[in-house]
């Protein structure tokens, strides 16, 4: 990277990663694509930036938006030559969500993923485990809809995907 650092308009990998940390999941706007675990590689070569991402769900309609958002964020910071690739491996699992991402989810009112047969999903509002699954599929395919029987608030649970 020493050569590229000298030219104008050249970016370090660190700078690119910092720009990318502003790109959020369009459906959970408090979690960055890095914390969600879908950002796989960033390659900076001269003025060219290549970003590799992986899809969460096979049919996730947000992937297209995420690709556009990445290009837009990089473009705003002066990156001209860029490529965003959608890889088919590694296969994304909810284990790839960072602790920071899980905390952001919880604070946003979405219960973070546990295991597939987990019965005790706790309410992100009041922490009660006295909750009921209303539907296995919530506002998006990656979430289930729950209701807290203690504080009576409905909430989304980010399903375990592993």
């Amino acid at each position: 990277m020493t050569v590229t650092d000298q030219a104008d308009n050249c970016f370090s990998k660190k700078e690119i990663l910092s720009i990318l940390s502003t790109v959020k999941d369009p459906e959970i706007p408090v979690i960055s694509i890095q914390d969600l675990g879908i950002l796989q590689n960033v390659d900076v070569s001269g003025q060219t930036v290549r970003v590799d991402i992986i899809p969460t769900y096979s049919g996730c309609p947000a992937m297209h938006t995420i690709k556009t958002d990445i290009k837009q964020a990089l473009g705003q910071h002066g990156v001209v030559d860029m490529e965003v690739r959608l890889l088919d491996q590694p296969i994304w699992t909810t284990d790839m969500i960072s602790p920071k991402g899980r905390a952001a989810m919880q604070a946003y009112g979405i219960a973070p993923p546990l295991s597939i047969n987990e019965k005790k999903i706790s309410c992100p509002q009041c922490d009660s485990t006295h909750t009921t699954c209303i539907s296995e599929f919530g506002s998006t395919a990656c979430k289930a809809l729950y209701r807290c029987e203690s504080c009576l608030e409905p909430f989304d649970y980010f399903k375990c995907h592993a």
Partner: protein
Amino acid sequence: MTNSIDNKALYAYLLRLADSSLTMGQRLAEWCGHGPYLEEDVALTNVSLDMIGHANIFYQMAAELSDEAQTADELAFLRDAHQYRNPIITELPKGDFAFTMMKQYFMDTFNFFLYEGLSQSSHEPLALAAQKALMEVKYHLKRSETWLERLSLSTEEASKRIQKALDDLWFYTPELFETDATMNKLFQQGVIGDYGELKKKWDSHVQAHMNHCELNLPETGWVATGGLEGEHSEHLGYMLAEMQFLQRAYPNSQW
């Protein structure tokens, strides 16, 4: 290993997978705005989205193997009914909620064991796609299994309807396990699993759940066949006419 795989056979098989997922996804999408209640409406269309996602992956893989420089969209939107290779069950009109859930249960169970097998495929892209799809299908199956239980063990009306759905759909299921010469070739090359084994697993899983739900399997009926050779029911043509309209009326148009 990849070089020895028969591309023509694989192309045909990928179309069977893709066509099955797409027709199922399209039928589920017809529920949008018609679900019995809001959450269920959302669930039906979420499953639909997964199915269309799977179809897209398989069409892309097929398009890469094609000699004619086809795209995934062309395979979905520009082939006519006789070129579709899905089993007839996936093209049947959505019917009532019980009919949709029974069909879904049969297909979810089938897909679960199918993708479990394909996860071991010697063709790596197919193995990866199957591993990914399997994670999603687990949730589909969990949901349809629970709905069958809920409907069959609840009110008289619900159990009558779910039993009728079973009677109407049961003899469409043997077609799921049909194989042809090209599939046998793929089996020998380790690309796909043994459909005989798949049927055994499916049968025992379904039988057990039907017993649990106190549902009775019908004894005799007309057994559906033909999808693998492109012989379909009249329903597929109507479905494709609607689904493909835009692309046929305005060729190459994009979102």
